[in-house]
């Protein structure tokens, strides 16, 4: 093989890489553009906002991974999980239980509710094979109707509740628009998980960067020992990653040592972070089990999976149940962070924003990983923080920024799904033509 062909291959690889990651690239450019045009956005404000949003949303976004691997596509039905989580919170708040115990109770109550709804949506997806995504979207809208019926009319109308309860509307029928969760020191739920243990942001950066550096290092040494082939691309990537880690360590050490302005960034909730890491580890580990392998083979080809003795429908249902349960827990984490439960609005955008996040991170209908989810949450929320700024400085109106943000969310999902379908069709056509020849 001579050099030119190698170079040509490299070139087509780069083009492929660009088209594969076009959504991510647009978002990165957009965020960078935002930083350039919005002069003087406070880095502390930005990082505080970003870290808050990250710990609020990451768990929810991670709950999308398993259904993608099992071939169900992006599960917009996590709204149903979110609603289950909210039902659990409403029950716990109704009896005015609070603190860490109350939160644990929320998780516990949400488990059977969301598992049941996960089962039902799973059965639905098995009836709508090939159209799961639109079905999951419609299922979310459908469930929202029942949710409203439950909270607006059944509570108070059929289930008798005292009208003077702070959660219930003054006329005794239905739950109020927003429920205050109460602060944790007064027996409430707000920040009940976050406030267990908090850590300065820069310390967290230091620990995370050091851990990643160590992992890359160990991996490198192991690869060397086992004489695994490492491509040039991987080599470059690991060097970039390592240097980023080193820079991060440098910045954080400097900030801690000099007690600079960066130390004023809001502290991070360690337990929430640990839960997010736990879900990452769980998702990784389950892929190593028999069930995880079943997910993969069902996701790749249902017929082959069926022939090789996997119960396809059952495997898909398990994937949906897991996703729904994690979404319910993710919603509980989200709401305790917010401090108030917007009874009828909080969940409606969850599916949309989570799906957009993971797509921005580089996932598609058929591939999704922890990396996509984590990177996507960071990038998507950066855009979210920046777009009013961009609206204000480019168009002179923050409202335009808001509308632009909505457009980006819908647009990202549309473009990512459209590109995926288009590429799939092109590939399908190519193989057909090859066969004909």
């Amino acid at each position, binding site marked *: 093989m001579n050099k030119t062909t190698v170079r040509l291959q490299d070139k087509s690889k780069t083009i492929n890489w660009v088209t594969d990651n076009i959504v991510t690239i647009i978002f990165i450019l957009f965020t960078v553009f935002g930083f350039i045009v919005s002069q003087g956005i406070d880095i502390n404000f930005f990082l505080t906002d970003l870290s808050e949003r990250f710990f609020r949303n990451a768990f929810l976004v991670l709950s999308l991974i398993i259904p993608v691997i099992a*071939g169900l596509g992006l599960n917009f039905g996590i709204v149903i999980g979110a609603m289950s989580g909210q039902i659990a919170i409403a029950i716990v708040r109704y009896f005015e239980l609070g603190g860490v115990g109350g939160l644990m109770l929320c998780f516990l109550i949400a488990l059977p509710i969301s598992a049941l709804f996960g089962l039902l949506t799973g059965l*639905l997806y098995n*009836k*709508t*094979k*090939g*159209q799961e*995504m*639109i*079905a999951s*979207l*419609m*299922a979310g*809208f*459908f469930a*929202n*109707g*029942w949710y*409203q*019926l439950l909270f*607006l*009319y059944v509570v108070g*109308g059929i289930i008798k509740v005292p009208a003077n309860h702070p959660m219930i509307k003054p*006329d005794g*029928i*239905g739950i109020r628009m927003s429920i205050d969760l109460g602060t944790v020191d007064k027996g409430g739920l707000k920040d009940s998980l976050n406030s267990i243990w908090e850590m300065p942001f820069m310390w967290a950066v230091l620990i995370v960067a050091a851990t990643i550096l160590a992992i890359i290092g160990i991996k490198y040494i192991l690869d060397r020992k086992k004489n695994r082939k490492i491509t040039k691309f991987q080599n470059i990537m690991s060097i970039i990653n390592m240097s980023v880690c080193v820079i991060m360590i440098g910045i954080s050490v400097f900030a801690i040592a000099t007690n600079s302005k960066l130390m004023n960034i809001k502290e991070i909730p360690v337990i929430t972070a640990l839960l997010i890491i736990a879900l990452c580890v769980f998702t990784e580990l389950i892929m190593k089990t028999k069930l995880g392998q079943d997910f993969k083979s069902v996701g*790749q*080809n*249902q*017929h082959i999976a069926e022939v090789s003795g996997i119960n396809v429908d059952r495997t898909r249902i398990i994937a949906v149940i897991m996703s729904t349960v994690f979404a319910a827990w993710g919603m509980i984490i989200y709401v305790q962070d917010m401090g108030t439960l917007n009874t009828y609005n909080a969940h409606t955008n969850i599916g949309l924003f989570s799906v957009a996040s993971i797509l921005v991170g580089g996932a598609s209908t058929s591939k999704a990983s922890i990396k996509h989810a984590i990177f996507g949450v960071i990038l998507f929320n950066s855009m979210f923080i920046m777009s009013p700024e961009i609206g204000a400085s480019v*168009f002179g*109106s923050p*409202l*335009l920024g808001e*509308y*632009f943000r*909505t*457009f980006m*969310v*819908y*647009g990202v*999902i*549309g473009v990512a*799904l*459209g590109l995926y*379908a*288009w590429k*799939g*069709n092109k590939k399908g056509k190519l193989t057909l033509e090859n066969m004909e020849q």
Partner: protein
Amino acid sequence: METLNEKKLGFGEAISRIGLPTVIIGIFWIFILIVGVCFGIPLDALISDTIKRAGMNGILVLAMVPSIQSGTGPNFALPVGIVCGLLGIVCAIEFGFTGWGWILVAVLIGVVLAIVIGYLYGKLLNAVKGSEMTIATYTGFSIVAFMCLLWLMLPFQNKQIRWMMGTGLRETIQLDAVGGAQLLNNFGLFNIGGELVNGAYVGGITIPTGLLLVFFIFCLGIWLFFKSKIGIAISSGGINPGFARSAGLNIDRGRVIANVISTVLAAVGIIVYSQSYGYAQLYTAPLTMAFAAVAAILIGGATAQRAKVSHVIIGVFLFQGLLTTAMPVANEIFKGTDLSETLRAVIQNGVILYALTQVKGGGK
């Protein structure tokens, strides 16, 4: 015709012929009507409202027929056409037209825009075969969000449509200011059994002749179109693409034409809708309009793959009838609440979900 054979067929077979959603919604409607009459809700007002709302929504529902017949599924991207129509409305006002001139110019601008945008949309759908419904939904959502930007930025000057301060258009635009409100409705309007008090009918059944006439003319047009050579080619492409292709038909072209027609119908549909409503709603209002229209045609007996004009007429009367009846009845039962939106969410999305479970094929 099908009801005549009902006795000979088994019960289950009869239901599957008419379509489960049609049967359930029909029975539900009759049930609510009976409950409503028991509560003493005037029947004639309910019927008048049903007719008016059916005529209002009719053309939007009719827009589903070409896209379903061509095989691209229900047109979840209805907002694409709707924003074209809305743009036609505001442009016509901006140029200073009133009354019949306004509606004609609005339709003209809306249709021209819809043809261009519908063509591009059809091309898009051909590129993403197999995931049309999901992509269409997000195309619709995206275009509504994009138009939110445009409504704010377009340099309209007419005081009737723009905000008092700053730039941009209002969220709802009053059409009686340009003499456009109920223009079609009042054309040949007559009343049965009511009496005229101060220029308005009290009681009796009001028939908005112009509105219904326009709706039925469009129905007739679509019905005739699918009897024509090109119409038959489009629907055979929808039924069996492989067969149609081997018969030498250009399926992709058929799909584009069908979606152009669908988008044009949506543009005209929203103009008819707005004039009857009396207001044009901009910004996020069109976001979920597609789902109501999809649900209506499905209630009429269509599937995600087959639809007829008769499904549109049955569906729109049944669905709007149910919604209009359910509102006062629900308010009677649950005093002081507004159950109608919730009820609509459950029925509308439930019907669409049911239709999705009936789509054959799929799976890898």
